[in-house]
């Protein structure tokens, strides 16, 4: 990812900031500026997710590109946040056999990747057992 591209999405990645439609009460992550249900009647506001939820489904990554190679095997999951919206994110675990569908998780702040020894370090949100 280029430096400007990750920088633009930084706030959302650090803090799980999405949006909420105040008209119908639906939450969106990544943020949407238009509510597909309410269209023009929708009132969209920024919303910071609590960061708690559960695993809907997950897969185990056993081979990865250079940047993530040292971290294999690792788990990437679809997580349903308590507010109702779903997102895909890495789940931290010391033993991949401990992860299961329905497991409660909470967000934490971790290093996502580093561009070699001299490039930019990307930080963001991962999930860990609650």
């Amino acid at each position, binding site marked *: 990812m280029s430096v400007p591209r990750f920088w633009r999405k*930084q*706030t959302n990645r*650090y*803090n799980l900031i999405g949006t909420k439609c105040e008209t119908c009460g639906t939450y969106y992550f990544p943020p949407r500026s238009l509510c597909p249900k309410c269209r023009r009647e929708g009132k969209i506001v920024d919303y*910071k997710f609590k960061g708690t939820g559960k695993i809907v489904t997950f897969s185990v990554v056993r081979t990865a590109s250079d940047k993530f190679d*040292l*971290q294999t095997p690792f788990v990437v999951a679809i997580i349903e946040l308590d507010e109702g919206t779903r997102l895909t994110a890495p789940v*931290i675990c*010391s033993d991949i056999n401990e992860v299961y569908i329905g497991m409660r998780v909470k967000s*934490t*702040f*971790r*290093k*996502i990747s580093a561009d070699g020894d001299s490039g930019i*370090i990307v*930080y963001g949100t*991962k999930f860990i057992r609650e």
Partner: protein
Amino acid sequence: MVGIITYGAYIPQFRIKADEIAKVWGANGTEISNGLGVFEKSVPDMDEDSLTIAVNAARNALARRDVNPADIGAIYVGSESHPYAVKPTSVTVGEAIGATPVMTAADYEFACKAGTAGIQTCMGLVKSGMIKYGVAIGSDVAQGAPSDALEYTAAAGGAAFVIGNDDPIAEINDTCSYSTDTPDFWRREGQAYPRHGGRFSGEPAYFKHVQGAAHLMMDRMGTKPADYDYAIFHQPNAKFPRNVAAMLGFKPEQIKQGLCAPRLGNTYSGAVPVGLSSVLDVAKPGDRIFVTSYGSGSGSDAFDITVTDAILTKIDRKAAPSVETMLNDKIYLDYAQYAKHKGKIVMQK
């Protein structure tokens, strides 16, 4: 009065025992553990560094008390393992707790006392009315070269303190420092591991400065060791703080709660901040706390603190994990896993 508004610590989950390290180098683990008083140390996960520890500690502090991030006017992160040589840790922390952009920020370095130097800076800004709240963090993923004595203690962890004037949970009655140019421990730019002056790190360095600042503090306050319920000293191991406490006239019961080194190791800039967090986890209104940090090079910052009623009414201590909870929540690594975690294995590039 200026004081601590809220606090939070963070300790990574992984541990390695001194015995396991000793085995690799053909050393006697029991002898080393007993000599240092350190039996195991924390190890960061592969995706943790001093910045992620600082962010998670700051978030734990804010989980305990509803502080409007927009009222945070300054952030100082003290560490000797900032992830970048040039690019501040403190602004990423600010972004991750929603305090940007109207704030000042800087990274501090003063070996193991950069975190307490941040507390002093925030106190000055709050007392002068320049800011409402300041955040001071001490956080490190300490480095020790393989087989060096430091490898048995160099650990990871940190803690954050929000400093302000309104209803502090603990008032900081006074602070003072004792600093000189002393070459006991150093790391040159671009070097992966620090070097130290061996025996030189004790008498003319740690003991002289910690005692210097501690005596200065008690002289200024007109107090004696018996006036304090708790005392926290910098803990590069468990032996130094125990000895300096005894030299100053503090009893083992006074330092026990704040002495995390036996189960945590030396978290450098995080050491005194984590020790103070451990005391605040259990402190009652009226308790008086004595704090003295130490940073090689060398200097010590002393603090005289009184816990207020607000610790029972203004914060929810259970909203973030206590130091004791984090010390007990652990996964042991063997040396090979530890070497991978710490990036000590040379990979083909």
